[in-house]
């Protein structure tokens, strides 16, 4: 091959790789532009804060936003303790022993399980096994053993568990060993070192993982299809405590959710064309929500990586 040909090859293939990377960015931009231009027209306060009317063709999406917020909060409350303690165990206690390797392999596999399989598992395990089992033990008619926010949140928590574990592990590993050694030299026990030295240092990394998993959970649809989502509910999943009249979220109720709302309106609503603007509006709200969360996680990470220790 002549030198000239090699030079042409060199610049051609480098250019090809560059154009692929920019194509991926262009796709991202096209998606955003399409969703924003088509959706921004319907966004106003009453769209965000009113319930749907007239068979979903009019009105807002407040119940779906409310449901999304509730379920992601419940999910993160369930997932953080398990995920963080698993990560602490892996980095601080297990190290690279056999059990640690098995746990890591399971986490990697859990991360690769298709989301619809989580949905199936949610039905089979949470709703039917645990829920029906609780009903049977308590001797009550159907209460736990039906699709509900609690089971959907548990299923989602399982889905985001690997995200939390991996990012927490990364955060814990980035804490310098010298800090731990200094604390041990002062006579601190293992847990004292973890609680007072390692965890405060790793706080931002754990928070980043939590934000990422909230965004992941808010965007997932398949796991909640059968575990608690509803097409339309006339009221919010809230119940009022008698006598004191304080409304609280009812985790045993079904709920509406943004991503499910998009799915069901785009594929199964009675009048797909009439709800098109609302579909785009809902998509815009969902994408804005997950985007802000992801962006804040990325900025967080860059900021804390640059911070001198």
């Amino acid at each position, binding site marked *: 091959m002549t030198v000239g040909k090699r030079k042409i090859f060199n610049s051609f293939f480098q250019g090809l790789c560059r154009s692929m990377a920019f194509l991926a960015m262009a796709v991202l931009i096209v998606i955003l532009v399409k969703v924003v231009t088509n959706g921004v027209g319907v966004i106003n306060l009453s769209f965000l804060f009113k319930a749907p009317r007239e068979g979903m063709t009019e009105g807002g999406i407040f119940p779906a936003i409310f449901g999304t917020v509730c379920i992601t909060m419940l999910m993160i409350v369930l997932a953080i303790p398990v995920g963080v303690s698993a990560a602490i165990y892996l980095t601080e206690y*297990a190290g690279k022993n056999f059990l640690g390797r098995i746990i890591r392999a399971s986490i990697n596999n859990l991360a690769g399980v298709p989301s619809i399989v989580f949905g199936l598992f949610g039905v089979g395990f949470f709703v039917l096994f645990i829920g029906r089992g609780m009903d049977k033990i308590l001797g009550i008619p159907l209460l736990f053993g039906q699709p509900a926010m609690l089971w959907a949140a548990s299923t989602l928590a399982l889905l985001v568990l690997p995200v939390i574990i991996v990012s927490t592990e990364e955060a814990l590993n980035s804490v310098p060993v010298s800090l731990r050694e200094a604390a041990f030299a002062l006579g601190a026990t293992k847990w004292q070192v973890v609680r007072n030295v390692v965890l405060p240092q790793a706080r931002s990394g754990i928070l980043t993982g939590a934000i990422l998993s909230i965004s992941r959970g808010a965007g997932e649809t398949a796991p909640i299809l059968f575990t608690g989502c509803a097409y339309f509910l006339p009221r919010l999943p809230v119940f009022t405590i008698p006598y004191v009249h304080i409304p609280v979220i009812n985790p045993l109720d079904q709920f509406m959710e943004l991503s499910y709302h998009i799915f069901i309106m*785009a594929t199964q609503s009675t009048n797909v064309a009439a709800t098109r603007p609302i*579909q785009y509006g809902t998509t815009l709200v969902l994408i804005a929500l997950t985007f802000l969360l992801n962006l804040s996680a990325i900025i967080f990470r860059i900021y804390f990586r640059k911070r001198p220790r």
Partner: protein
Amino acid sequence: MKYDLQSSNFRAANMPNSTSPESGLKRFGDKRISDLLVESRQANVNRQRVQEFIIEKLLFAGGMAAILFIALIFIFLFKEGAKALFLIKPIEFIGTHILDFDNNRVFACMWQPVGESGKYSIVPLLIGSFLVALPATVISTILGGGCGIYLAEIASAKVREIVKPAIELLAGIPTVVIGFLCLTLLATYVQNAFHTTFRLNAFVGAIGVSLVIIPVIASITDDALRAVPNELREASYGLGATRWETIWKVVVPAGISGVTASIILGMGRALGETMIVVMATGNAALVTGNIFSSVRTMTATIAAELGAVPQGGPQYCALFLVGAILFFITFVLNLVAEMIINRMRKKLRL
């Protein structure tokens, strides 16, 4: 006097009648205060040991949760799926004899799980899944691989700071949004460009799914190539190779196991992708090799049907069996990818 260095939360509040260590010589009741001090300190240490023990066990339980849930997923999917094998003859999962228009008995692979004589052949579903996943994997291997090479080898640090987060953001777009855009916009473009019979087809789904796995392949390829030691590049440049020759003949072969693992993982994701295919592939369970025909994947079948079937019936169990097969395929793919990555790690450490 014994001092335990482990005890660090020694508190003055435990010492009756005293604020300073010298008062240990005074008497308190029938005991010397210094003895009391030792005792209370010992009690503290014991309490701490118990606390440490309990905390370690709690953290251990958190770690075991991952193993537990993988095992439970296995058990519950295969338990429900196995019931299907009792309710439906195993041969029917491949195909059944039906009468065609000329009243001849023919062996057909159909997924029609309705009515008394439901047909439960999973062949069309498997074909559908792979008809979406394989093109998606090919598209995203080319594009994602290119992105990964660009990020690791070509891009300057500044450009990288922008492109990498952008690709991560692409990964963060909810799949239902991509599915929705495929359904409303992309399907029309594809139909106008290729004049296809079906507006929603496997190819539209494959493009949508590839958007999800491009970031997966790009970021793992990026990691794998960046792990290749710099000496190799320097040696290649020293022999007079151009940058592209170095990338293609030295760096990529050195990091090939990571790249392979990323493609396998991407394929697993493509097979498991649900919302895009349920919205964009048309959901017709056909036995076909045509990429522009409507197909029904395993994931879409579960998503579309499970909500409407009575629990415990043959269709319900058959759907769990489909889920179990899907889980098994992705499990094997993940395992293979992980083994490749582990081998790569070991090799690079040497």
